[in-house]
């Protein structure tokens, strides 16, 4: 009741307070024009058949069938339309419940998520709606195996009642429990758990017949595994038999597969041991004897998803592959793929199966041909040529420079004509791209790696250069006249444009879309910038900030570990040249290159931000982007030298300092500033260290960091994140109050914020600190209760204003509530008003740096904050709004007036009203007008970055996470441009009319004056 009433008061107050400013919500006409959003489904996991992309054919409305590409990433299950690559639907899972795998059957897709498969979701595969959801066990009771996806499986049984569509699900979780779930309502029919003594057995796969369900597991024995089969009654879940099958499995679940021969009732278990393929038919009594396939020297059996057709692939030692088919209890080799042995001319082949509309199977083989520099796909069609089988193939020009290497593909084949086989493949690459190829043409590409952006930076575009014809000294008269004539060609258009612009109000409008034909040039208001974004999948993108289109992209080279392979971890990005330097803007991406051979190198990539060109000239033209190894080992931190010469300071783990670019001028500039530089590092655990830079005694050009202070936080806290202050001009040194006294802002340039996480698993404490980075003193400290050991504190520091959001579970009495909090803190100099210590220019040795006071207010929100950032404008005069991303997948712009920590608890006095302070209300309103992302869903936002436009009123925002979102906000309204409703035509007409009236009236008045003289 109290909250309700306060909500009313807030909205009432808000109405009055905010109706003053004319524009503070997004206009409908601006939605989709000033902002953009890109939806992603995440980079598909290709490490198992249960999550990689695959085609799913399903019944659509009527009798048609339609197909979608289903793919699962860590936290997203998505369906992509194969025609245009758009997202048909997706479902995002909680971070605590990552997807273990998806299992599809016609119009139903089931997923298991969480530890040991704790939750089962069943989706309608056409619409993506959840049909039912079932928690099978508590995540705490989940079994963690070495491989995440071990010990879980879902298989679809026959429907219980004939004629009913929904098939029952048999679900294996935790490697020991089998459930039968009703297909229609998701009710648990029965559940069977393996008895304790067989806990050495991990059940891995389920196979179902009409009457019996077989759970195939692996029992650990000396140095290998033994197959273990449990037969359960499908109807009741009653244990029929359980038995070890004498076998010797080396590679776990990769070494066995199930086949359903079309002619036989009983499924068949096939495995490989010591180079020999063996099989056994599964019967309810488990009485069959295993038998061996002729021939040895086999290394691998591959399940290509055609078990229902009894087909699988056996690979020999030399890499050559043979298709086997089970016919009447005998295996028959039906096809040898020619030239499939391992060779230096082409890469290892990837095999995939497909079933067309009529249910006919196909097997594809794909490899990369080094000779052709193209991908090659062979499709084996068993039923053609009277059952002899036919292989058709084509090569497709896959671009490794743009998309890396093919990790996985899924095949979809149609056989429209007797000898015609058309195939399309969906390819997943190492750079996280998902591409659809129809034969040798690429239909669409989804850059899913954009959902894994690690660092991003706004880069300003250069102005369009006025075009000037070349003037040469030796130009003759005729040449000169001709040049002028050619220059004057555009004059009529210019004149027409000028008249039109003068007479009507067709100026560039702040709420209009930016024209995109102008190329890479700044627009009138500076809304168009390039966002350079480096992803975790070794690709860097240049994104147009006005519409989200990818302008350029480059694949990052692995340099020293090119052969071994490795992972590029982007750490920081610096703008080393901006347009104000008179050159094309350049960025430097700092990465840690972790080779799979165990080496770590610090590599920088120096890139032209407009084109993606390598500025360090490491990479040959047309090749992938190669970086520069600065030093071997992991970098501990990197900074940009705050001087005219843009130099990057890198620290290695031994605290030695490296400069990039390492030029004489840069070393000189650094040496000059070095004595006054201070920085701090967070070492593992709960200690922060501050450093100063010392010059080498013998080698004057060698610098290293020398520790000056240490700050030990309480033992049960671990440093979670360090929040650096937002960089931007500070327009005002203080806050002027209603009586014109001043609260001087505490603008210590060394200030940064630290959030900690609790070390204790329960009932711990997390904290927020403001630390003076020059000497390690704590300026502000707040403890928040941890929620079951985790504190997801999000914080932002700008000027003297710290805002942090967390979940408060501290529930002690009647007057407390659990909930999501946002706390706003402002630090001011001295003890009160007019007390000035000039904090921004104080030496760190001064004792006045601790002479502060602060204001604090805590607010309740209805949504957890996943990221927050303050708006940034060119001169810093515009009010700073907080841009927050919420769990509701929205981006909100919260006015500073709502978050002002000086909001009075009583009714505001006249002086406070003069300051535009509104009465404090603990509840931040859930006002839809604050949502800048309007209808868009912006999921799992990890970070928001802001950048100033040329207009002081406007700040550009870019939020990235699973989705990308770009927009622009005007916290104080567009005060520096004429409003859209300004009627220039009316103004021009009025002035014209008055001029005309004067011209007519002047002679009349003159005449009248003259007459008066005469008659006087």
């Amino acid at each position, binding site marked *: 009741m109290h909250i309700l009433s306060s909500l009313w008061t807030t909205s009432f107050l808000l109405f009055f307070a905010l109706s003053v400013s004319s524009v503070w919500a997004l206009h409908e006409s601006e939605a989709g024009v000033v902002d953009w959003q890109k939806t992603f489904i995440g980079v598909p996991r290709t490490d198992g058949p249960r999550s990689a992309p695959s085609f799913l054919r399903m019944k659509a409305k009527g009798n048609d069938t339609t197909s979608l590409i289903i793919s699962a990433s860590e936290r997203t299950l998505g369906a992509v339309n194969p025609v245009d690559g758009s997202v048909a639907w997706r479902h995002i899972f909680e971070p605590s419940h990552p997807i273990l795998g998806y299992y599809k059957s016609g119009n139903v897709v089931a997923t298991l998520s969480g530890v040991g498969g704790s939750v089962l979701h069943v989706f309608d595969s056409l619409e993506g709606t959840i049909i039912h959801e079932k928690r099978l066990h508590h995540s705490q009771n989940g079994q963690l195996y070495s491989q995440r996806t071990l010990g879980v499986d879902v298989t679809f049984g026959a429907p219980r009642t004939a004629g009913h569509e929904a098939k029952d699900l048999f679900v294996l979780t935790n490697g020991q429990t089998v459930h039968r779930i009703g297909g229609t309502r998701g009710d648990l029919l029965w559940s069977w758990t393996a008895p304790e003594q067989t806990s050495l057995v991990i059940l891995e796969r389920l196979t179902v017949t009409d009457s019996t369900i077989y759970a195939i597991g692996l029992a650990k024995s000396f140095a290998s595994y033994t197959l273990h089969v449990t037969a359960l009654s499908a109807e009741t879940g009653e244990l029929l038999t359980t038995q070890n099958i004498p076998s010797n499995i080396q590679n776990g679940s990769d070494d066995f597969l199930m086949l359903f021969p079309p002619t036989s009732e009983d499924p068949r278990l096939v495995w490989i041991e010591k180079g020999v393929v063996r099989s056994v038919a599964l019967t309810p009594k488990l009485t069959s004897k295993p038998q061996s396939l002729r021939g040895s020297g086999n290394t691998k059996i591959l399940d290509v998803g055609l078990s229902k057709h009894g087909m699988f692939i056996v690979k020999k030692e030399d890499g050559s592959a043979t298709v086997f088919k089970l016919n009447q209890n005998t295996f028959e080799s039906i096809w040898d793929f020619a030239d499939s042995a391992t060779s230096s001319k082409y890469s290892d082949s990837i095999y995939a199966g497909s079933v067309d509309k009529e249910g006919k199977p196909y097997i594809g083989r794909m490899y990369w041909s080094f000779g052709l520099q193209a991908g090659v796909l062979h499709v084996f069609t068993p039923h053609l040529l009277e059952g002899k089988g036919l292989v058709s193939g084509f090569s497709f020009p896959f671009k490794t420079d743009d998309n890396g290497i093919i990790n996985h593909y899924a095949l979809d084949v149609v056989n429209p004509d007797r000898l015609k086989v058309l195939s399309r493949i969906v390819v997943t690459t190492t750079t996280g791209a998902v591409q659809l190829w129809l034969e040798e043409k690429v239909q669409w590409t989804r850059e899913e790696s954009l959902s894994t952006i690690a660092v991003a930076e706004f880069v300003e575009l250069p102005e369009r250069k006025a075009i000037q014809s070349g003037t040469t000294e030796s130009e003759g008269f005729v040449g000169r006249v001709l040049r002028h004539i050619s220059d004057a060609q555009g004059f009529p258009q210019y004149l027409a444009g000028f008249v039109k612009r003068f007479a009507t109000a067709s100026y560039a409008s702040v709420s209009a879309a930016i024209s995109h034909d102008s190329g890479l040039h700044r627009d009138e208001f500076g809304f168009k910038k390039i966002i350079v974004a480096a992803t975790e999948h070794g690709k860097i993108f240049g994104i147009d900030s006005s519409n989200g289109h990818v302008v350029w992209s480059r694949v990052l080279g692995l340099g020293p570990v090119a052969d071994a392979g490795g992972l590029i971890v982007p750490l920081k990005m610096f703008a080393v040249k901006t347009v104000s330097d008179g050159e094309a803007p350049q960025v430097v991406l700092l990465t840690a290159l972790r080779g799979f051979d165990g080496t770590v190198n610090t590599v920088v990539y120096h890139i032209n931000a407009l084109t993606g060109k390598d500025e360090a000239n490491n990479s040959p033209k047309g090749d992938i982007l190669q970086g520069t190894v600065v030093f071997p080992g992991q970098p501990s931190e990197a*900074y*940009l*030298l*705050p001087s005219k010469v843009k130099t990057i*300071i890198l620290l290695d783990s031994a605290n030695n300092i490296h400069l990039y670019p390492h030029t004489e001028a840069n070393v000189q500039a650094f040496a000059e*500033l070095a004595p*006054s*530089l*201070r*920085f701090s590092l967070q070492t593992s655990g709960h200690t922060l260290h501050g450093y100063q830079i010392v010059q080498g005694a013998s080698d004057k050009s060698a610098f290293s960091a020398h520790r000056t202070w240490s700050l030990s936080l309480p033992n049960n806290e671990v440093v979670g994140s360090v929040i*650096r*202050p937002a*960089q931007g001009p500070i327009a*005002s*040194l*203080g806050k*002027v*109050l209603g*009586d*014109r*006294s*001043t609260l001087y802002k505490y*603008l210590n*340039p*060394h200030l*940064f914020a630290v959030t900690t996480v609790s070390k204790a698993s329960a009932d711990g404490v997390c904290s927020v600190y403001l630390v003076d*980075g*020059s000497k390690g003193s704590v300026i502000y400290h707040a403890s928040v209760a941890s929620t079951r050991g985790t504190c997801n504190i999000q914080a932002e520091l700008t000027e003297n204003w710290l805002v942090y959001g967390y979940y408060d579970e501290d529930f002690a009495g009647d007057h407390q509530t659990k909930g999501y909090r946002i706390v706003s803190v402002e630090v001011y100099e001295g003890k009160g*008003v*007019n007390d*000035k210590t*000039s904090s*921004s*220019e*104080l*030496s*760190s040795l001064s004792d006045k740096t601790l002479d502060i006071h602060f204001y604090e207010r805590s607010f309740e929100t209805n949504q957890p904050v996943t990221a927050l950032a303050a708006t940034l404008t060119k001169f810093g005069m515009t009010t700073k709004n907080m841009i927050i991303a919420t769990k509701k997948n929205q981006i909100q712009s919260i006015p500073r007036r709502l978050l002002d920590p000086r909001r009075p608890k009583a009714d505001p006095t006249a002086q406070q009203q003069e300051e535009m302070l509104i009465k404090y209300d603990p509840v931040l309103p859930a006002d839809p007008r604050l949502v800048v992302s309007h209808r868009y869903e912006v999921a799992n936002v990890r970070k928001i970055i802001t950048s100033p436009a040329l207009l002081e009123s406007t700040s550009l925002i870019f939020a990235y996470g699973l989705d990308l979102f770009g927009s622009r906000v005007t916290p104080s309204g567009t005060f520096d441009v004429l409003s859209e409703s300004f009627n220039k035509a009316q103004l021009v007409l009025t002035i014209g009319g008055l001029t005309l009236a004067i011209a007519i009236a002047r002679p009349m008045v003159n005449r009248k004056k003259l007459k008066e003289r005469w008659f006087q």
Partner: protein
Amino acid sequence: MSVTKVEYSKWKSLPPPPGFAPLSTTRPSSKAVNTPRQADSYAAIKVKRAWDLAMSPAKSLPMQAFMLYMSGGGVQIFSMGIVFMLLFSPFKNVAAINTAFAPFAPSPSSPKSFNTLFIQKIVYILANLTTLALGLYKCNSMGLLPMGTGDWLAFETRGPSPEISLH
């Protein structure tokens, strides 16, 4: 323009109407007798009038204060008009001080000199200053005087810190 001149000589012989004293000019013999007394009273009247003038700005103060009160605290055309009047009239008055006091100057002294009626002029200046003070008070209460630190904040500057933090 023609001005009709009164020819005194024409009517000199006529007796004055009943109850009217004869013109002084007609009795030059009495001039020597009456002049000192009359001059004294003139001088006294002049001094009195001079004092009246000197005190006049102070006398109008209550009325002006009331007008200010009525005009309100907001910055609008009416209150600004009154405030400008209060601010400018003292300067105007002081600038024209010698002319204003010239009619009351005692006969022997030079009427335009600042030294004549010195005390009255000083009082007049002081009284005008009270008007000015009232105007300034009004300005202050309307928040138009740069009295607070906040009014000078925009002119404050800060140098860089001797240490540079890398962020």
